[in-house]
């Protein structure tokens, strides 16, 4: 029986669960308020460039209103509640998010371009789990810091990125509220919709007005939040360049700051590694979420004796990766989040070619509209090449080989970043040896891109400071007196 080309048919997730509004306002003090400057911006679907909705653009006056609402809620309501009461609200929010999981997943995929199977199986369940996890801490904070007096900080200003919109919101809002703070959050301009849906969930949960405020807008909105004098804490996830500006703006203030910034993480395969699983791990490390992952394993170091085999296996594996409509349940790599980001990635791909690295991309038909990028491997990359040094934030992997463990350790640490690393080996001793010397906030052994609410996450060097997740994540939202 002839069997050529057994192609999977498109299997599209229904968008019927999502009711988009024509226009979204700002969520301040439990109400939907029009922006005072009456300005709105469009949000589009990156998978086909279609217009989704118009979003309010908050200016300084709106930010001020939101901070005042948060201050008022902090002074008069939230800081007076017991931990157990705060926990009740958080549990309620977590359950409501679970109930609306399908709607949130479709919304995330429509607005951001990530494959539905990732928003459905990873982003949304993890975001719910973060709320459940921190809900549990709300009445046990003193146990976490035994013998040390703790107090909440006040108003937290939070700025989230576009790669994991709802998940990063959860990473920030859940611990902030559990610790007794109130929040003003600004989502990234290309992906505001799930944050706005989250505001509706807060209303439905009966969360007191002003405890969570969502202000949408561009960088100027975020900047107004950062410099606002009545904000006690800034938490930012995004690029290192913007992180540096924020840090400068906070100098001389008593604002507490945590930054989770860029990365150029090294993924290291030793010759005794489980090779097929390591290859799969490399795929997961760099192509997960189109490579829009701050801790993406974007530098691959393979030990010389197995390099040819690993690279051949990677090339073969790329042939069975489906790139296309993110709403298709079979899609592995969806749409690049924005035109601007696609241009950045394409710029780096041409830089890689100019630098003399050898490029490999699978043959695959991309949709005619929308922002798409083929998964890309670069081999023969120099350590000094820009594609090995700079964060690309896309599905582009720079591959180098190495001979000795000392050599790979030096090369892996030879980066201004230090967010994550991966080590693939069958030997436990090598895992411990390398992970204790790699300058990275997270080192994964024989796996990659694993997240759990109980596990702290954060960077070294220019990848930022402060930890999110786990018990460590609490200290970012508390004043701890020794």
């Amino acid at each position, binding site marked *: *029986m*002839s*069997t*050529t*080309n*057994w*192609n*999977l*048919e*498109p*299997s599209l997730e229904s968008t019927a669960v999502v009711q988009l509004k024509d226009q979204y306002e700002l969520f301040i003090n439990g109400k939907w308020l029009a922006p005072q400057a009456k300005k709105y911006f469009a949000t589009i679907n990156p998978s086909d460039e279609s217009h989704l909705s118009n979003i309010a653009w908050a200016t300084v006056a709106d930010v001020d209103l939101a901070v005042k609402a948060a201050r008022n809620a902090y002074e008069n309501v939230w800081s007076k509640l017991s931990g157990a009461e705060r926990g009740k609200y958080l549990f309620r929010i977590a359950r409501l998010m679970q109930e609306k999981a399908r709607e949130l997943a479709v919304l995330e995929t429509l607005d951001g371009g990530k494959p539905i*199977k990732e928003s459905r*199986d990873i982003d949304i369940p993890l975001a719910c789990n973060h709320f459940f996890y921190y809900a549990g801490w709300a009445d046990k904070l003193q146990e976490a810091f035994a013998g040390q007096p703790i107090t909440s900080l006040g108003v937290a200003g939070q700025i989230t990125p576009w790669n994991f919109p709802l998940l990063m919101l959860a990473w920030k809002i859940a611990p902030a509220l559990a610790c007794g703070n109130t929040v003003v959050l600004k989502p990234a301009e290309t992906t505001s919709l799930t944050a706005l849906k989250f505001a509706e969930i807060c209303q439905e949960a009966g969360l007191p007005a002003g405890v969570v405020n969502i202000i949408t807008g561009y960088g100027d909105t975020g900047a107004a939040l950062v410099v606002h004098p009545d904000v006690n804490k800034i938490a930012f996830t995004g690029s290192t360049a913007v992180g540096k500006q924020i840090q400068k703006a906070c100098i001389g203030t008593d604002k507490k700051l945590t930054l989770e910034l860029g990365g150029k993480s090294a993924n290291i395969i030793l010759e*005794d*590694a*489980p*090779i*097929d*699983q*390591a290859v*799969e*791990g490399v795929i*997961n490390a760099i192509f997960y979420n189109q490579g829009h992952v701050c801790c993406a394993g974007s530098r691959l170091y393979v030990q010389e004796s197995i390099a040819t*085999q690993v690279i*051949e296996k990677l090339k*073969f594996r790329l*042939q*069975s990766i489906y790139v296309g409509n993110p709403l298709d*349940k*079979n899609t592995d790599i969806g749409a690049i989040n924005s035109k601007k980001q696609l241009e950045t990635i394409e710029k780096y791909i041409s830089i890689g070619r100019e630098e003399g690295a050898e490029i490999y991309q699978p043959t695959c038909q991309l949709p005619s509209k929308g922002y798409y990028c083929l998964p890309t491997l670069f081999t023969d990359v120099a350590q000094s090449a820009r594609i090995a040094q700079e964060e690309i934030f896309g599905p582009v992997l720079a591959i180098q080989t190495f001979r000795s463990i000392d050599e790979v350790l030096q090369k892996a640490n030879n980066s201004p970043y230090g967010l994550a690393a991966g080590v693939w080996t*069958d030997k436990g001793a090598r895992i411990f040896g390398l992970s204790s010397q790699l300058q990275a906030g997270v080192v994964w052994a*024989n*796996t990659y891109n694993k997240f759990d609410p109980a596990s702290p996450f954060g960077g070294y060097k220019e990848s930022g400071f402060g930890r999110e997740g786990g018990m460590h994540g609490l200290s970012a939202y508390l004043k701890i007196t020794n």
Partner: protein
Amino acid sequence: MQPKYTPPELLVRLKSVPPIDQIGTHERILKIQSRSLKGPAKLHGLRLALSMIDLTTLEGKDTPSKVRQLCYKAQHLHGLSPELPTVAAVCVYPTMVGVAKKALANSSIKVAAVSTAFPSGQAPFEVKKLDTLYALEHGADEIDMVISRGHFLAGEYNYVFDEIAAIKALCGSARLKVIFETGELDSLDQVRRISDLAIAAGADFIKTSTGKIQPAATFPVVLTMLGAIKDHFDKTGQMIGMKPAGGISSAKIALQHLLLVKEVLGEAWLTNEWYRFGASSLANDLLMQYQKQLTGKYQSTAYFSID
């Protein structure tokens, strides 16, 4: 048995086969299982799976008439769907090979015989040899032999290698499938080791299980064996066939196995020349799902004949 002995370089290699990480293996499988098969692609997959079945009866109470019934079904899977392919082979004990051969005389369906003291393999080599020769003399097109698990687990790779190589030498043009009984092999590393050994000793197909022991053809075991086949192909250009057997009783699981083959080995393996399902009850579920795809309705199991 003529001592032939494992080539020394293979012995060295078997001591350190590529390690298999169980967690990573499971994750790869979950990715395959989350694939969505719809419409014509599903129909194609169902037809493909039917064409890959080794329709099997391996019971002490098998009778010539049961084998003849099975052979009829092998040729006419479902009266209402004459467009369906036939299965690939009928798999029986050596004593039934003659019956099956005669019943399938006018078809291209192969007759496979389990051999070498199936299912335990607990017999002297001379007995295994006679067992195999008997099946071949009665016309078996394919021999499904079992390995000596005891010798393998004891690390006596020479013995296992020689046994496979000696049976292969008897087979002539008949294709040799080597059954590992992975449910007795303890770890995925061992599964990888026996896969490399059997392929080096001349197996045309590698096969998971006898169907008599659980667990049988689990996804991690199958993925590990596919990995060995892929590495052998990358190194030598020679294709080796794969036959999961035991425990694959639903269309859904069978289709997931085919997707695994498609992604791990490539479409060249998606024919019954290189891929088989050893199964007795799978065919009816495939037929039921096939009718469901065509008509939109599930039919009663009463509409599908059991033998």
